[in-house]
């Protein structure tokens, strides 16, 4: 089995999330799906254009097709955005490690997402909310540039807030229209909310600059390095640790990541 050969899959549905984000519901033609865990990624390809590593935003335990939320930024994501339901793409995976859920039983969970960074968190949040009783309080802090850029609106506005002991806290960088909510950058907003580090695990995901400042804010709030979990993104080609692309020091994001604790991150060269 050549790990670089993808399986052909069909785009079953395309859900527009924001002006430049769409969620693609994808079903591999032969296997229907594959086993994966929250935080893992897959290589999605548009034949003739190329491949890109994209985090899986669906939740495996729900046994549905694969879902990928993709922001239009480059060649492959651009081609995906041009695709229609029924089109064929390639999928191979899953790749990378996953969020260490096993260690989180009984603890409070704090999710901090920014923009399209909610995509990997969504897989995790839905997984956790499906086994709600395993965890303590759940808080979801999520921000985007504008109200229109908030992804997964149905979940953040309706589904998640309805679950017992779940707080969803939304913010935008710049308000417009009839936005009544908070206007602040995610790290500032987070500091203002001031969640307690007591018995809590914080998981953050978003653009590199947001992660950088969120890590600092969490530290300021008293979270220890091993209480903070984040994901890294680096250019990838093979996804299987062979192409030499996504190394940070001696670690490879595709094998050793994308999920790292802040403690692990501090051991790595600051080059990502």
């Amino acid at each position, binding site marked *: 089995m050549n790990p*670089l050969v993808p399986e052909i899959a069909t785009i079953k549905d395309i859900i527009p999330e924001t002006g430049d984000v769409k969620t693609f519901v994808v079903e591999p033609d032969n296997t229907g799906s594959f086993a994966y865990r929250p935080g893992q990624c897959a290589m999605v390809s548009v034949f003739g254009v190329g491949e890109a590593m994209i985090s899986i935003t669906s939740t495996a335990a729900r046994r549905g097709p694969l879902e990928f939320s993709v922001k239009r930024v*480059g060649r492959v994501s651009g081609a995906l955005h041009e695709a229609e339901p029924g089109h064929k793409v390639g999928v191979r995976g899953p790749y990378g490690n996953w969020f260490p859920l096993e260690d989180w039983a009984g603890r409070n969970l704090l999710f901090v997402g920014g923009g399209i960074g909610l995509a990997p968190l969504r897989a995790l949040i839905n997984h956790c909310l499906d086994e709600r009783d395993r965890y303590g309080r759940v808080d979801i802090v999520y921000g985007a540039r504008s109200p229109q850029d908030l992804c997964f609106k149905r979940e953040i506005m309706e589904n998640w807030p309805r679950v017992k002991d779940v707080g969803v806290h939304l913010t935008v960088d710049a308000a417009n229209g009839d936005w009544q909510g908070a206007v602040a950058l995610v790290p500032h907003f987070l500091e203002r909310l001031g969640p307690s580090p007591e018995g809590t695990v914080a998981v953050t995901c978003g653009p590199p600059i947001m992660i950088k400042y969120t890590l600092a804010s969490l530290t300021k709030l008293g979270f220890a390095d091993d209480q903070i979990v984040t994901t890294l993104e680096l250019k990838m080609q093979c996804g299987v640790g062979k192409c030499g692309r996504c190394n940070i020091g001696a670690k490879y994001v595709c094998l050793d990541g994308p999920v790292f604790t802040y403690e692990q991150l501090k051991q790595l060269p600051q*080059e990502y």
Partner: protein
Amino acid sequence: MKLMRAGALPRLLETLGRQAQVYAPATEDGLVLLRPWTGQAIATSYVNPVNSLKGLVYPQTEAVLEFTGGDENLSLREAPAPAPQVVFGGRPCDAAGLALIAQVLLEGTFVDELFRRRREATTVLTVACREPGPYCFCRAMGVSPADERGSDVMFYPADDGYLVEAVTARGEEALQAVAGLLAPAPDTGARDACRELRIPLAEKLTTDRLAARLEGFFEHPYWEQVARRCRSCGTCAYLCPTCYCTAIFDTSRGTRGRRLRGWDSCQFKDFLLMAGGHNPRPAKKQRVRNRFLHKLSYSPANHGAYGCVGCGRCVEKCPADLHMVAVLTDLGEVLP
């Protein structure tokens, strides 16, 4: 161990060539290159062919798959299995480089099928060294002029031919096919001479405890200083017998296309450029540092060996003389 007269070499290649494509060193425009052998003169006086063994087992570009069809009906075909090949004339450093690439590509969670198939279809006939080239430093990197790693058959140059010894079962098989050309070896002198060959340049370099000494060296100003002369081309990586970084890309013509894999270099400025514009290593300092730390620190950490076999190609060919020997020499002064 057997003895083969030098004059029997064409017949050996001819015999092995009945079952496989044979490659041998040939002189072209004043350069020695490993080329498909079709009976032409076989070059013998060279330190190392310009192209390393790497390219024959891990080609500069190769197909992963072919695809045909349109958006809604698409079919894939995996690249066909490679044909058998016999490569004569690579040096022990290059073969050791292959062994190192094999470690990276074949060990771990995933196996690189493309490499595995081609490696298994290749018989490596290595010619050991009786004379060091001006830029050879193999011994500094833990490789010997008679190193057997990665080779199927060793050829030790003797006065009137070669001492020949199979290293692997595949090599044994190859030698059986040409048994008529081999006579019993009178002694092991030629092999011993290769094994004992001194490599003067290597003696000037210290690689003792290098990985440990490099700890904490990541932020040292040395990298900025040395990287200034780098031109961010791919000469070092593309000539290197151990550099294995690749890119995967598609090409298409109408409704048919191919997905290919090809060499890439971490020295190119766009190597890590992501869609959206983020580039974690935009500066030469970062890229040069990554190249050398990969070989001297990350590779030992992940694979237990330096990512360099001391072949000397980067020393000879880097247009700005930013090469492993220069860096090792500098590190000898800069490192604690």
